[in-house]
């Protein structure tokens, strides 16, 4: 019987350790995921140090390339919009009218993005087609 008890105690310790680690990791890596409208509504409710991830559509003709390689653009949703500043790798599919996800935080009224994702590659179906269907 003894080895079985030892085994259980050890297993319990390991699981407890990792549960603790998971909780800590969740706490330190939280990112709020919102759309442009939600961000503008609730902007002040988020703790300052937490990262935000915002989804919106890149406004036509809003992309400006700066000399230092950074870009500024506007993402919008149903009329409301926000200015985003970003320096880093620009995904291939990033362009006017694409759904983009930016991750970072607000510096004043400008959203300073550390990461930029554009929705796609495995774009299985065409967005318009899906709308027609439904």
């Amino acid at each position, binding site marked *: 019987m003894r080895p079985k008890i030892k085994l259980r105690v*050890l297993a319990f310790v*390991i699981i407890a350790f*990792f549960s603790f680690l998971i909780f800590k990791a969740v706490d330190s*890596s939280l990112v709020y995921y919102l759309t442009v409208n939600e961000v503008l509504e609730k902007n002040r409710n988020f703790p300052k140090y937490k990262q935000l991830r915002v*989804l919106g559509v890149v406004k036509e003709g809003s992309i400006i390339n700066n000399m230092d390689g950074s870009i500024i653009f506007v993402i919008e949703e149903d009329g409301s919009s926000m200015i985003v500043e970003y320096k880093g790798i620009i995904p291939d599919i990033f362009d006017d009218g694409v759904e983009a996800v930016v991750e970072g935080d607000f510096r004043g009224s400008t959203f300073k993005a550390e990461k930029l994702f554009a929705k796609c*590659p495995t*774009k299985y179906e065409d967005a318009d087609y*899906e709308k027609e269907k439904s």
Partner: protein
Amino acid sequence: MINVIGDNVIFLSFLFIILSFFFYTIAFFKRSNLFSSIGKRSLLSVLILLTVSIVLIEFQLITKDYTNLYVARNVSNDLNSIFSATSLWAGQAGSLLLWTWILSIYIFIENKKSLDQLIPISKIAGTFTLSFFIFLITFIENPFEINSQVIDNGRGLNPILQNIYMSIHPLSLYLGYIGITIPFCFATASIISKDKSNKWIIESKKWTYFSWTFLSIGLLLGSRWAYLELGWGGYWAWDPVENVALMPWLLLTAFIHSSYAQESKNVLRRWNLLLIFLAFFLTIFGTFITRSGLISSVHSFAQSSIGDYFMIFIFSIIIFSSLIYYKNKIYIESDREIKALSSKENFFVFNNILFLVITITVLIGTIFPIISEFFTGKRILVGPSFYDLVNFPNVLLLILLMTFAPFLPWERGNIRPVLKYLKIPLLLSTLISIFIFYQFNSIKISMVFLICLLPLFSIIKELMIDIKLKNNFFKEKFRRYCSFIIHFGVIIMIMGVSFSSNFEKKYDLTLNEGDEVYVDKLLLKLNYIYDKETEAKNILGANISLTDQKKVFNLFPEQNLYKYEGNREINRETEVAIRSTFIKDYYLILVDKNFEGSLNLKLYINPLVSFLWIGSLISILGGFLLLVRRN
């Protein structure tokens, strides 16, 4: 015309699979060979019909028959025949058809086995699963749907997906994913038939090796592709779609270890059943997650109604599995229990716990937005640091287990002889990690090296002893050596991953034609900028020479702009220029051109990335060797 034929062929296959399921069920209750052979014939018909429909749709794809809606939406005139053919799995309906076809092949192969207790029920489970998928392609996502418009060019394949890695990657993942169905069927059969032997484990063995190997290849190709393309954060980004592919792989790895314990020592029986159920569940769940649009990912798959059907299927599996589990509970318990703490089987238990913890971590991270929205109303997700923080100590513990477990005996173990055996490997790896510490000044990395090198050297030591004693290990210890090869590869891979993620260097540069710049002892010169035009695209490129300690080489990063857009939103593609050496990769990206003609560039120096690819390939080789091994 072909559309109508294809549509009918698929409908016929649906009828036959229902027949097959029906007759197998009767055959089981009546114990009749006649009904069973009718079931078998029907299943053969299903296989033939599905093969015909695959041939038909491939013909349509290659000849670009745009009367088929699927063809119109996935290929275009400028696409070559190979990518046209592989477009079968570029869209939803085609992927499902392929999935169904592969599953029917697998079930048919297993079907040929002789009749004993286990096989009849696994056939029922198999044909039931197959019915679900054929139902989907017949009524929900039909690949032979007719295009109502007349068009002379299709929408085409996304340029980023026109890549040889990307065209094999899904196929390989499917081969692996679907393979898990067969062990699941055997497990079900073993419970229902109250069979206490290890027959189902032995029958499943080849299939788990097979699935494991192909899932590994699929994951490797996927990350290789991500590395060569841009904006994906290297080779792994903990994206939900990547995660759902990884979870079944993790559970399968756990299962391979614990089923070995059951095969050898008849322990962990209940645990193994649970693991294979979970693995199968996660396979279906993964498909559901990516297709239902429940979780937003950078890969946006179609959000279609098939998610609902997957949900129903998942629930029926859960209810059915728990039902048969509780009904036959007394037959499931192992007769034997684990006797000693430092025994091989006990180390397998810990291996399994750790793998399960990784799987749960990945699962939590993946569905975190759903959970948080449910409880707080806000969508909150966890970043990559979540996974890194939890998985880093976990993987190190796993490698520690990997060091000792192969040298521990079954049942009554004693760790002391193993420690004695590991003395020289330990000494060597300590010396090297001290050297590493002085070289890189990082405790984290030298610890990784210490823990990783120990099992490496212990494997080498056993090999050397065997060679010295002229043991004929190719015959006698083949399986053991296969596992060593896999372990060896995994360790190399982990060293590559931890090194490259900790010591990656990144530089932003803006250069004019003729500019020379020193970057960290590296001389970079922009020789010239060029514009090229081909039939399909406009290319902006640069010829840049890099000088690293007298070695000079030229890199050509490019930006492609595709002319024919079709209905695609994407027409830009970045060609990363990579110079890979054994020690480090020079990874150069042309971001864009400024108004006055200078170029914005990004240079990454990624150390030891080659270890990641080499290690993975070694592991996959080990998997193949296990597969071809004769029993």
